[in-house]
């Protein structure tokens, strides 16, 4: 009886897992087969012919370029990492300040930062477009980075604030009586202790930037600054949609994010629950 219960439980888990993963699996399969086969009815789950045609096209091994995916990938990597580094640096300092210092209007500032997160990004697209066009940073990586930093800073502040709060304030006090300056105490004691949490916050910020579509679609205009999610739209023609190409570029997007998540999975979970108790 117990055995049956166990087996049926795992069967249910498997079923749910398949359901959740199905779109992802479909994308992976479709990236490696010809376009017509994707549209066949009934659906063809196991491709008759596997091909890496879309990838060779994207990364122009045969000299013909369908979509400049390599350039998009580079844009994505640069924009995401630079904006993450900046956002986590500012967020770390801000989070530390909120956790450790008392200053006038502290709660109000914190609240307004959180409210900034609540504004739907798309509602900012028009003002941003006009503003960026006027000051001439439309269609530049710099512009996108600026937007992503603004988007991620409140988030990283909120997360790191929680992590620093978890560390007893005596840690820094004892370090300071041990001969550290405030900065040394932060660097030698509090930062290493908050490390996993800050790492988790950084990964979140990175993934947010990596996946962002709405604002990038407004600010980026050409291959010069387009990121992968925007580049995907290159497969959308007036009368046809190259589904296989789209799936292929989606794979290019998913794989790094997936690898990153696997690497930091442990930290992510511990980091999130760690910060979660903050109350």
């Amino acid at each position, binding site marked *: 009886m117990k055995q049956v219960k166990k087996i049926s439980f795992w069967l249910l888990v498997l079923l749910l897992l398949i359901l959740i993963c199905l779109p992802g699996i479909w994308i992976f399969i479709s990236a490696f087969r010809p376009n017509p086969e994707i549209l066949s009815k009934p659906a063809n789950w196991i491709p008759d012919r596997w091909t890496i045609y879309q990838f060779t096209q994207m990364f122009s091994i045969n000299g013909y370029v369908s979509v400049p995916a390599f350039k998009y990938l580079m844009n994505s990597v640069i924009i995401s990492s630079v904006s993450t580094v900046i956002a986590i640096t500012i967020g770390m300092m801000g989070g530390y300040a909120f956790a450790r210092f008392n200053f006038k209007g502290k709660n109000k500032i914190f609240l307004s930062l959180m409210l900034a997160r609540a504004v739907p990004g798309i509602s900012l697209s028009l003002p941003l477009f006009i503003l960026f066009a006027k000051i001439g940073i439309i269609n530049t990586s710099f512009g996108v980075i600026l937007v992503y930093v603004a988007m991620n800073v409140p988030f990283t502040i909120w997360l790191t604030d929680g992590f620093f709060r978890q560390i007893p304030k005596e840690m820094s006090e004892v370090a300071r*009586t041990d001969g550290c300056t405030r900065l040394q105490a932060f660097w030698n*004691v509090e930062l*290493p202790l908050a490390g996993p949490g800050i790492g988790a916050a950084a990964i979140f910020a990175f993934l947010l930037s990596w996946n962002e579509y709405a604002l990038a679609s407004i600010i980026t205009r050409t291959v010069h600054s387009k990121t992968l999610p925007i580049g995907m739209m290159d497969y959308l023609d007036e009368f046809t949609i190259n589904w296989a190409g789209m799936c292929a570029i989606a794979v290019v997007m998913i794989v790094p994010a997936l690898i990153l998540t696997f690497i930091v999975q442990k930290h992510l979970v511990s980091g999130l629950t760690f910060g979660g108790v903050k109350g």
Partner: protein
Amino acid sequence: MAEVKLKNITKKYGDVVAVQNMNLTIPHNEFLVLVGPSGCGKSTTLRMIAGLEEITGGEIFIGDQIVNEKDPKDRNVSMVFQNYALYPHMTVEENLGFSLKIAKVETKEIEKRVTDAVQILGLQDLKKRKPSQLSGGQRQRVAMGRAIVRRPDAFLFDEPLSNLDAKLRTQMRTEIKKLHQKLQTTIVYVTHDQVEAMTLADRIIIMKDGYIEQIGSPIEVFSKPTNVFVATFIGSPPMNIIDADIIKIENKFYFKIDNELMMPCLESKYDLIKDKKKIIIGIRSEDIVPQISPNYGSEFWNFNKKIDLSEPLGTETQLFFKLGAKEIISRMYNPRAVNVGEKLSFEINLNKVHLFDSISQKAL
């Protein structure tokens, strides 16, 4: 190796006064204990000496330098915290050597000093462990070791034993005392436990509501409390405090405790009380002696009372009874069973009675 001096030190949090106009000189090599109930300003005082709390008014000297504006790191004092505050990501060894590493001391010298500290505190086998792998007592030792390696001018202890269980606390108390004798430096020690204060201190400061109530050696504050607060705070069980009226009968003064009991006043104290109507009497429980064969003489006073409760503790039995409206505790040192309701004869040596003013509560 220096004297610590507090001059008119005041600390305010907004309108709330934590420490009021404190003056204090701690000579080199003294073990000074700050004791008082929660919120009396003792920890705040310690933290101001350490530099972790800003000073609202007054001056703090370490050696002959004013340190008001100095960072904690430049004051050369070491602090031991209640929750140990060991660096969790470092081993015992690294914890001990951390301050020296920051001060850029040579590796060889660091090793030597860490080894010394490890030996003093008996941590030889734990050098490579992380704090999470240590017991409470061991963590406490590491925390002290971390203070020792710096060779500071003064050690500051902030309730270092309150996180330990009773048995370990007694043991560590002895170790701290021994450590002080070995290291010969100034120690300022904060506690709310009067037993710790009595056993450790060269000098005790009793604080309340930001004020110093009394400064003195343990024996001094115990035998000559300057007011009712100190009298009841130091000593366990606390001193018995009784309100009484002063009555004059045939040129003799008596303290009328309740309707039936009149305690005579020693003639030597007539001058102190002759203008007063009311008084507060303080008697330590060991000075209320159950007596079978009473002593005779003008300094002895005997009375009979029914026992409400008796608590045998082994070496002594505590007897509870009522005097006036107050519950009184007496200590009996010859162990024998006492029944509730039994009437006993008690004797008080009037020389051991403390008298306090009924309004100012100060000792007369």
